[in-house]
């Protein structure tokens, strides 16, 4: 969903002032991408829901302190993507096996191409998935991604290049 910065600032201001409809507008503008980003990094529907949900809850709780001059989206996306990376690393450390329906397997309505993309995304490391999602889903520039993830820009570029190589040829 395309959202102008002016709309977003107005919604934040309205929600801070107690407007439920402005809060809803903020939610509608950002939920889908937050959930999608979390899912594409974690490949786990329950985790994606928790991560997107907690990120919104954190945002709501901090709404009164939020600086309206700053854009809301990047702030939310930073929380979502970092939490998704942490969750994925933790799962790897615990040696968990994915049991929930995944895009790669259980999406019967997905096309073969979509399944291939999902499977290839799943084969990337969480760090590579994160930069891919930030660049190609959330449309940040490499410089902005570097800032969001506290990474050198060169690292972001190399991760993007490598991720595209692995996703690339047959897509």
């Amino acid at each position, binding site marked *: 969903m395309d959202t102008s910065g002016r709309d977003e600032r107005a919604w934040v201001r309205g929600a801070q002032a107690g407007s439920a409809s402005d809060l809803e507008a903020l*939610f509608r503008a950002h939920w889908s991408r937050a*959930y*999608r980003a979390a899912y594409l990094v974690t490949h786990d529907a329950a985790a994606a829901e928790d991560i997107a949900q907690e990120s919104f*809850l954190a945002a*709501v*709780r901090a709404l*009164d302190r939020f600086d309206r001059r700053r854009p809301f989206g990047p702030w939310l996306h930073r929380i979502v993507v970092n939490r998704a990376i942490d969750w994925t690393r933790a799962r790897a450390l615990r040696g968990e096996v994915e049991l*929930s329906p995944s895009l790669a397997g259980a999406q019967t309505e997905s096309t073969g191409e979509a399944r291939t993309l999902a499977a290839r995304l799943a084969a990337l490391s969480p760090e590579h998935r994160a930069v891919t999602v930030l660049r190609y889903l959330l449309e940040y520039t490499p410089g902005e991604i570097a800032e969001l993830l506290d990474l050198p820009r060169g690292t972001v570029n190399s991760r993007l290049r490598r991720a595209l190589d692995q996703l690339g040829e047959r897509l």
Partner: protein
Amino acid sequence: MKHALQRRLEHLELPGEHEARLRAFELVCTAWEQREPEPRPRRRLVPILAAAVLLAVLAAALSAPGRAVLRSVREAIGVEQAAPALLSLPSRGRLLVVGGGGDAWVVHPDGGKRRLGDYTFAGWSPRGLYAAVARGRELTAVEPDGDVRWSLTRPDGVTWPRWAPSGFRIAYKSGGSLRVVIGNGRGDRLLARDVDDGTPALAWAPAVNVNLLAYADRAGRIHLVDVDTRRERWSSPPGGRTTELAWSPDGTRLLALGPRRLRIFGANGLLLRTLPLAAPAAVAFSRRADHTFALARRLDLSGSELVLLRAERSTGRPRRLFSGPGIFQDVVWSPNDRWILLTWPSADQWLFLRPGRATRQRLAAYSAITRQFGEPGGVFPTVGGWCCP
């Protein structure tokens, strides 16, 4: 022009997205309604001072039997002038406590303790004449002096025994299933599979002429079952991991507590409200007719709080009784409904709080709880119930 990969990522179908969105929106709205506006910078000290004043008032008003007056709250975790030992209970009734070392204890109103034995789970019978206790693969009924009435052994570990209000049934978990046994130890049978042994998410409805048990399955569906006819009265949609259930005394409200949310069900399983939580918490109903319950919940970073809410569509503005750093564990109302026992592992303390108007509020604090029910530095004890004058 959009990158081909971008288009594909945007249009991938994701499982559960719509349902997740609905759930999240409800939680976000609830959190937004409940948020407390940030104070102006020049008033930054006001909440701190208010909290200090509240605690000082509570402390100054302390008049629990056998205790010194509390006058201040220390800056470190815990109430500073807490008594060094559990000297007495502020109300009649006996506490059932499981120490971290795996001992169950009965605590009498005068503070005297009697060890029941090596048990890791314990719960009172309806009138406190017996306790259902468990250790390893054994379920046992004991008298309050520790005498064993009967015992049964299962192939798997036994957890969370709960005695029905009728006195004629005991429910417990074992090997990922929910089982029920008659109060005399006979007729043990399976009631449901696919439950989480690790959580006490089972609760008998407060009816004495029928044995109705609410339990949560692994998907977080709540089921209400007549255990004698095995007929299911209702079940809820999945709601995520559920760790605890609690009935209102009139049986018209059921709280389902999970790590991230508290669901409030009305009669016939109607979901009235969902409250978001930052972390696992504890709940306990008062006996008041207005469905008041106490909720111990974690705040984001600043510690935990104990609040009173009402189990209705509109829970009312939370009434904070106490807050402090670290985590709270158990919340238990006294049998006469005047006191709340709040256990505080981070401070190694028990707090007895008497809610009410400001002039009637009381607080009694006891420290070194772990040592009194086990080894110093061991696991903080859990409270299995406060029963029966």
